[in-house]
């Protein structure tokens, strides 16, 4: 294990632990205000937790607030942890090249060597042509590329990325994401995001945080396919009914029962989750006949365009239908409708 942290910030209701393996990228997913950025600040040394400990490559970064233990607090500049924020925060008085050379210069590298390193990293992020520009002359995407180069040039043992793509135009984000995918490969990093694409493309493992606490953790592909927490399910676009196993279905807290196919052996009465895609959901005004399936009474809360379809949201489930169907069924927020889903489309697993 190259990095591990466990910390409490009681003022913010924050209590989180995480580990990052050698060369592993961990994505921290969670809604706004869930404590993701707090975690970044604590790891970088910009915020002192009430209690907790962290170590990187066997070296203790901090160990505070625990009785009977000596107090350790390594200052930010001595941690080997670089932070890339949502905004590039390039130093406005330095050229792009000098911005990237800042890290090497700060640890005493010679000017020529720092410049050579900076040129190398600017090349790595496809920004060599901007070397002489001042930050004010750069677009958002260019500036963020240079900020990535600057963080990497500092040769951090752990790289923290706090929503690095959130402030970028939709048009440039994919290219920067691809670049990050390339440079993060084989590097120990933690990326905070609320975009499932970031997690899918950049991270080996995902940690889901809500209200300052970890609610779910696992390998990216597995977690996104079978999310157990409401947040992960929502961003992964999946419906989820949590409850206990009852026969071949999950009995939800409101009495609704969802039939499905268990992907692993679960005993009746065990906590379980039923997951299905919105595209597998049929929407009706009257109860349909035909083969047995799950039938759920819901009230529409929201209609929103989703690709070439319309996503019909209710308080806990959603369905994807065509615009024609929305018109034919005369759907609008407040309409009572019936959702149906075939049992074969529902995956059930232990939660």
């Amino acid at each position, binding site marked *: 294990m190259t990095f591990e942290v466990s910390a409490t910030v009681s003022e913010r209701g924050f209590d989180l632990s995480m580990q990052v393996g050698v060369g592993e990228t961990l994505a921290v997913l969670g809604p706004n205000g869930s404590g993701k950025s707090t975690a970044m600040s604590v790891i970088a040394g910009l915020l002192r937790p009430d209690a907790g400990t962290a170590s990187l490559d066997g070296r203790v970064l901090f160990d505070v607030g625990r009785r009977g233990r000596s107090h350790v607090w390594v*200052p930010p500049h001595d941690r080997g942890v670089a932070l890339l924020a949502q905004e590039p925060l390039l*130093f406005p008085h330095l050229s792009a090249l000098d911005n990237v050379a800042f890290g090497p210069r700060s640890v005493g590298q010679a000017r020529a060597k720092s410049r050579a390193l900076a040129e190398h990293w600017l090349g790595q992020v496809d920004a060599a042509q901007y070397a002489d520009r001042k930050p004010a002359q750069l677009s958002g995407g260019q500036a963020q590329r240079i900020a990535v180069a600057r963080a990497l040039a500092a040769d951090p043992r752990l790289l923290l990325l706090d929503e690095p793509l959130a402030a970028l135009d939709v048009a440039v984000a994919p290219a920067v994401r691809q670049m990050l995918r390339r440079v993060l490969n084989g590097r120990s990093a933690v990326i905070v995001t609320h975009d499932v694409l970031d997690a899918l493309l950049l991270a080996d493992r995902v940690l889901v945080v809500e209200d300052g606490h970890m609610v779910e953790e696992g390998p990216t592909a597995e977690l996104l396919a079978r999310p157990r927490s409401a947040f992960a399910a929502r961003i992964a676009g999946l419906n989820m009914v949590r409850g206990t196993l009852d026969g071949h279905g999950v009995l939800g807290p409101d009495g609704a029962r969802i039939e499905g196919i268990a992907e692993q052996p679960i005993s009746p009465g065990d906590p379980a989750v039923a997951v299905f895609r919105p595209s597998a959901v049929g929407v009706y005004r009257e109860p349909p006949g035909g083969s047995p399936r799950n039938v759920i009474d819901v009230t529409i809360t929201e209609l929103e365009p989703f690709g070439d379809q319309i996503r019909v949201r209710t308080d806990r489930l959603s369905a994807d239908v065509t615009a024609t169907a929305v018109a034919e069924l005369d759907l609008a927020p407040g309409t009572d409708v019936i959702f149906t889903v075939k049992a074969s489309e529902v995956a059930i697993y232990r939660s």
Partner: protein
Amino acid sequence: MARGSRQVGLPTWVFVPAAFGALFVVLPLAAILTRVEWGNFFGLITSDSSVDALLLSLRTSSVSTLLCVIFGVPMAMVLARTSFRGQQVMRSLVLLPLVLPPVVGGIALLYTFGRRGILGHTFEVLGIQVAFSTTAVVLAQTFVALPFLVVSLEGALRTAGGRYEAVASTLGARPTTVFRRVTLPLVLPGLVSGAVLSFARALGEFGATITFAGSLQGVTRTLPLEIYLQRETDADAAVALSLLLVIVAIVVIGLARGRGAI
């Protein structure tokens, strides 16, 4: 917004009080110009006592400004970047000379550094006599000018925010490196404008100086003191020196503006 363009029109009546205000500032300056005896102007400002006063003023104001920078920059950093118990009280106390009548500042300094002052005895043992010396002029000017530098620099530091500094530290820069390579360049305009304000305040200082340092030609009699004394005996000389001080002030502000500081 581009210079010369306005998105929203101002109410017309605003221009009336604005014009009166501007007139109120400019008219007295013009009044000086009308009273200057131009034929004798050069002679008046190059008399021994005038030259002594001008050089003393420039010398002491420069040293005071330097002291303001040396002590004011750390003070502004502590006020802007840390939080400690009693910080608000400390800030108010540091800014007190801004609102204090300068003569009160002079008396306070006298009872600190004067022969009977709380530090006076210490200085006397060391063989240093502060009161009524050029050192006293510098202390008086620094006392009244320091808050100007602290206020403008603290404002600049707060505007710049601590985020660049945080990033710099995670890139491996020690606090001193962060200060030298990030903080200082970011707040340089604020620092220059603070230093200019401090210099201007030191140059115009009168009350604290005459109380604490007295009025001895070539030693403690700065230009404002010289003007005040000349006014009793030679009004023409006083007017000529006043104009000189106005010119010096305009040059200082012009230099600072040229650098985009204020």
